[in-house]
Each structure stands twice: as structure tokens, then as C-alpha cells.
């Protein structure tokens, strides 16, 4: 029994060191680059520390009891089996702690729901197994597909740095502007999740869900589909590029030009009134659109 006690204590200390490792960067929730992601991070950490404090108290008493009141050390059992005072105490104190946690949670949640006054609105549609993005005011629309080659997935080629977290057409948004997302799906449920934006929103066929973000730092942020959507659920990542206002404007006009051009080619094809050519041109136009 002595031996199993030492093992028990050893195990507890291992547990705690694992919990301590919890808070170091890289394995924790990202702090992110949006006001909401910061708020969520702080709430997450606050709740984590509260749990740590409760854990230290609870496990402390437990470990103390397990060491102190062993039968092998001649401990005699006491006879008490209830105590109204402490029972009320450990009902009331946890309730108060919950109230303290609920207040910031309520405020942050309100913030998450505030999708008003957005500068840009992007409609995000989940498909099996890709995303479609439509910039409603700019008239830009494109699909975003996984760009990791199949050979890497089948271990026939070395895996790149962003294995499974790379796409042909990333979403591009300007820094420090409020972006409103309208999320829906064309087939089954998906979820649009980018941890560093603090956004996860289910894409549901027949419904349009709203969420928003303001990215405060330029950079590339990566996420994935968060809801099981079939065989290739793991293979429809989300890449978002946050760029300066000027770069965004250039990007928009470049894309609008491409859109115009493709319309132009379509009209040419129509005038030729040749169904076969029409099909081919359309195909070509789509390719151009995707490549740019």
C-alpha cells in the first residue's frame, strides 16, 4: 500500500505539470488578431485559472486525506456524515464563482452578435468539399479549393510546410475593417472556422448565419471546416489573407477586371452561336478566374 501511495502522489504531480504546460504558447488557444478573439482568449484563460484554483483546493484536500488517513498508518474512521454548514458553503461559493464568469461571457456574446456597420460583406458557402466566397458589394466570386497535391496525401511526395492548410484562392480582406460573414451551405452542414479570427460559424443549408471580424494585423491565417461533412471533411481548409487597404483595392480591381473579361469572352462566344465553343470558352473563363 505504501508503494501505491507514492505512485499516486507521483501521478498527481505529473497531472499538475501537464496542466501547467497547458498555458504555454503553441499548445494553447491562439490569442488571435481580432477584438473578439482577444476577448475569447481572456475569458478562456480566466476560466482556466478559476478551474486551476478550484483544482488546487479540491485535489489538495483529497491528497492530504489520502496521505493522512490511511488505514495502514492506523487511521481510525471518524463518524460524522453530514454538516449543513459546509454543505451550504460549497453550494453557494461555486454559484458565486459561476456568476462572476457569466458576466464577461454575457458581454462578449453580445459583441459576437453585433454584426452591424460592416464595411465588407462576404457570403461564404460550404460545398462538399470546397468553399465559395462572394464579395456582395464588389461583385467578386470564386471557389477556394485545397491545393495540396494528392501525392503528398498518399505519401508519394514530401509534405510541404502548409500540408492541408493551403488553397488555390485565399480570401483577401483589408486590415482594420469590419467584415461581415454570411455563412451558408449548398449541401450538408459545414463550419467555417479560423481560430485566429475567433470565428466559427456553422454553414447550414437553407439558413444564412452571420458572424464578423476585424483583423488588426496583416498576415495569412489558416482554418479548417469544423463540422463533419463527408469523406473529404479534412480537405477543405480556409485561408484568409489580411492585407493593407491599398493592397485590397488593387486586389479588388484586378479581380473585377478578370470578372469583366470572362463576361466579355462569354459574350463573344454567344455571338458565335456555337454551343461547343461556348462550353469550351466557359471552361476556360472559369480557369482564368480560379488561377488569378
Amino acid at each position, binding site marked *: 500500500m505504501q508503494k501505491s501511495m507514492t505512485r499516486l502522489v507521483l501521478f498527481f504531480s505529473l497531472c499538475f505539470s501537464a496542466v501547467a504546460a497547458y498555458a504555454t504558447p503553441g499548445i494553447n488557444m491562439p490569442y488571435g488578431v481580432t477584438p473578439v478573439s482577444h476577448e475569447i482568449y481572456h475569458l*478562456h484563460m480566466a476560466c482556466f485559472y478559476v478551474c486551476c484554483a478550484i483544482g488546487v483546493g479540491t485535489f489538495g484536500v483529497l491528497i492530504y486525506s489520502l496521505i493522512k488517513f490511511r488505514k495502514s498508518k492506523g487511521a481510525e474512521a471518524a463518524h460524522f456524515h453530514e454538516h449543513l454548514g459546509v454543505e451550504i458553503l460549497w453550494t453557494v461559493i461555486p454559484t458565486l464563482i459561476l456568476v462572476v464568469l457569466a458576466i464577461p461571457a454575457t458581454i462578449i456574446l453580445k459583441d459576437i452578435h453585433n454584426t452591424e456597420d460592416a464595411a465588407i460583406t462576404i457570403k461564404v458557402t460550404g460545398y462538399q468539399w470546397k468553399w465559395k466566397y462572394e464579395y456582395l458589394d464588389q461583385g467578386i466570386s470564386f471557389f477556394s479549393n485545397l491545393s495540396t497535391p494528392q501525392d503528398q496525401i498518399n505519401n508519394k511526395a514530401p509534405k510541404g510546410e502548409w500540408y492541408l492548410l493551403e488553397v488555390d484562392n485565399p480570401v483577401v480582406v483589408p486590415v482594420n475593417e469590419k467584415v461581415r460573414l454570411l455563412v451558408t451551405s449548398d449541401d450538408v452542414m459545414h463550419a467555417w472556422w479560423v481560430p485566429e479570427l475567433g470565428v466559427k460559424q456553422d454553414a447550414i443549408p*437553407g439558413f444564412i448565419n452571420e458572424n464578423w471580424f476585424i483583423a488588426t494585423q496583416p498576415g495569412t491565417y489558416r482554418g479548417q471546416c469544423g463540422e463533419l461533412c463527408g469523406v473529404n471533411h479534412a480537405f477543405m481548409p480556409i485561408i484568409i489573407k489580411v492585407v493593407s487597404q491599398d493592397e485590397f483595392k488593387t486586389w479588388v480591381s484586378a479581380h473585377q477586371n478578370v470578372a469583366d473579361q470572362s463576361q466579355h469572352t462569354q459574350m463573344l462566344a454567344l455571338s458565335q452561336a456555337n454551343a461547343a465553343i461556348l462550353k469550351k470558352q466557359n471552361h476556360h473563363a472559369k480557369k482564368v478566374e480560379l488561377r488569378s
Partner: protein
Amino acid sequence: MSEGILDYGDHSHDDHHGPEKGFKRWLFTTNHKDIGTLYLTFSLVMFFIAGFMALIVRVELFEPGKVLVNPEFFNQMTTMHGLIMVFGVIMPAMAGLANWLVPMMIGAPDMALPRLNNWSFWLLPFAFSMLFSTLLMSGPAPDFGWTFYAPLSTTYGPKSTDFFIFSIHMMGASSIMAALNIVVTIFNMRAPGMTWMKMPVFVWTWLITAFLLLAVMPVLAGCVTMMLMDRHFHTSFFNAAGGGDPILFQHVFWFFGHPEVYILILPGFGVISEVIPTFARKRLFGYASMVYASAMIGILGFAVWVHHMFTTGAPYGAQLFFMYATMLVAVPTGIKVFNWIATIFRGSISFETPMLFALGFLIMFTLGGFSGLMLALAPSDYQYRDSYFVVAHFHYVLVSGSLFTIIAAIYYWLPKWTGHTYSERLGQWHFWLSVIGMNLTFMPMHFLGLAGMPRRIPDYALQFTDFNQLCTVGAFIFGFSQLIFLYIVITSCFGKGTGKASSQVWEGARGLEWTLPSPVPYHTFETAPTIT
């Protein structure tokens, strides 16, 4: 009702001889101990099958890229693992414990409805044969996760989904009958003097569980029936294109699903409330508050289901209500944990295997409770939802709250049932390997989830590799250490244990079942005991 029970009592009096010989004993048995054994054996077999599936999943996740199976088969394995663990392992094991223990604990000769009892067990092998048959069909087996969200499982579901639907129906019918039987038994067959507030906590928690089952299993049945209608009879309950609502599916499913997790855990709370006092040699602290807290958990369980759906676009007000209700669950759960610790405090503690598993439960379950509190906060839930953080959370809660408590119960009552003691040394090995394997498997999943790894993916980005390898190693330690358990159970059952068990078995054990000889005779309490 009482007349029927009296009849049965008279009948069993002339029927003193032991069980029948051969397979007929098991096929036609109406004896609560036999049916308990059937349930537990079934659960043990399913446990190794579902565990094997989990290992396939873990092998595939050992490193990025395709390792062993393709994504289609991977999805079938995660789905089957979840379904079997919930419906084929934990629920039958808890029902088996109830069958063995409830009559003995309340001083009843048997369950109130013995033939129904036989039927509710024998539905299960057929239900699971039907579920397993989908693995042999030409199309994929169910591959939409154990939560089978529409429209992935309806419009887009494989053909085998219909077999899945019927097997769920059969499992549901089985659970409803088992629950009904337990309620009727507890209400009508308590020995004279066994008042409500004298009932062992295990009986109380099972009574509450049985009411939960009666309330939500029909909802699950309705849910899968609507799926069937959508798939074959041109209805559109869950099909947006036909004017239906895919979110309705989630409301219906989680209205069943959340009480379901308390169904899986509450009997475990009961087990722990029997085990800890025995090995602390001290009465359970706060018996009454234990009972009220269990009831409170059961009731609150009906008002929290939307916390599984915070990111589906639920309105602000609904999110607030369900967030507050969910947080409130922490209060009665906390009361239970504090009561158990107060029972240990100033006891006279020894560390036999059932106690080790109970303590393992206490710590792991509290950790699972902490991540549960974090998940309850709706804003943070936007980040946690459908990530490995959730996988870590529910495995901490269910492996400890259900699996560890079932194992603790087996070690605790097995000597009473079989009359043979097990090897304490092997039991301790089983515990330590399980607890190390379990933590190695599920602790890193917290970090994976927070770092952004979604659940239910067969392949992942390079940054997740290290932790996933740790998880896989842990899973193999955890899985293979269960073979020790299998060995212990088999040797005890077939009379090759380490020695003969006394009727008391454990020095500190209290309760009616310990007044019976070990092994327990085939018929017990034919004359009701007097409880003072």
C-alpha cells in the same frame, strides 16, 4: 401491479432448484442475476470491438498522410466506435449492474417484470448484428459520426443508414423496457422498512437514470423515424429544399443526447457512492444532498441541450439561457465531488483496486468537469466547438464517469457474485496502466483542440503530429491493459481466482447484498429481509 408481484413471489417459492443447464438457461432465463450476467458479458465483448475500432482510428492518426485506411473507412470507424461505446458498452453494462444489484440492494427476490427483462436483453444482440452487418454491405457503413446529423445522414447518407435506423429503434426499445422494469421494481418491490431515504445511492441514481431513459429514448426513436420518412417517404422534416429544417434535427437529437450523457454517468455516481465509503470505512457524507444533487442533475439535463449547438446560429437570448443553465450543472456536480472527498476526509482508507478506480474517477472526472465548465461559456465555445478539445472533454468525462466506474463496480462486486477473489496485484497493474494510458491518450487532445485541430478528420496538418503520436501510444497502452481486466474477470468467473470470498468480502462494506453468502445463491430474498 402488486398482485402480479405476489404471484411471482409464490411461484418462486416452489421453484427452489438452480438454473437450467446449457444454452436454454441463457436464452429463456428470467432470473435477474443471469440477465445481469448476459448484459455484462455482452458489454465486455462490445467493449473490445469498439476499442479495436478506436485503435484503427488512432493508427490512422499516428502521422499525417494516409497510414492505414482511407477517409471513408475512417469515418465508419469513428461512427461505429461512438455508437457501440454508448449503446453497446456503457448502457448495457449499467443495465447489467442494475439487474444484478437493484433487487439485492432493496431486498427483492427478482426484477418486477422478469420476462420483459429477458426480452430487453435479447433485443440487443439482434440490434447490434444488424448494425455490424452494415460493415459487410457493398456501400459504406454509417459514416456520419455517432451524432448522425442531417442532411449528411438523410439526403446524403449511405444506403446502410436504414439498417442503422432500425438497429437504433431496437436498442431504444430495449432501453425503454429495461428502464421501465427498474422503475417498477424500485417502486413496488422494496423490502419492508426500505424507505426512499434508506435506499442505497446506487438505487437512487438508477431510478433517476431510468426516468431519464423513459423520457428521452422515445425522442430518439422519433428522430430516427423522421430520418426514415425523409429518406423514403418524401417528407422533408430535415430537408431545407423541401421546406424542412436541418437544425430541427439537432434540437431533437440533443434533446435526447444531453440527458443521454447523464444516463451514461449517473449510475456511475451511484457506484462510486457505494465504493468510496467502503474503503474509507466511513458512512457516505451528505446522503440526502447526494440524492437531491442527482435529481437536480437529471432535471437540469433537460434544459441544456442547445449548448451543443452554440455555433448553429442560435439567437443571443437562447444562447444566454442555455449557457446559464449549463453552468448551473456545475453546482450539483460540485456538491457530489465535495461529498465524496468529505467521505474520504478523516476516514480509514485502504487502496484496493475498486477504490483506486474510484479515486481515478474522482480526479479525471473533475478534470472533465473543468473542461465542461470552459465549454459551457458560449463565447469560448465558438473556439472549442467541434475541435479535439471537445473530444478530450467527453472522453475524460465518459472514460472516468462511465468506464472507470463500471470497472470499479466489477472489481467491487465480482467476489460477491462469483465467490472468488481476484488477484489484487493484477488489479493494481490494470489500474495504473489504464490511468496512465488514458491520460496519455486524452490529455494531449486538449492541446490539439486549442491549437485548432478539428475532430473527425483522418489527416491533419504537420503541426499536430507530435501530440497525435503521443495520443496513439497512450491509446495502445490503454487498450491492451484491458486484456488484464479480461483475464481477471474470466479467471474469477470460472473459479480460478485467488481464493474463496467471504460473505462480507470487504471489511467496510455495508448494505443488504453483503448479508448474502458468496457466491450469491441463484434465488435470494425469497422472504423479504427486515430493514431497521
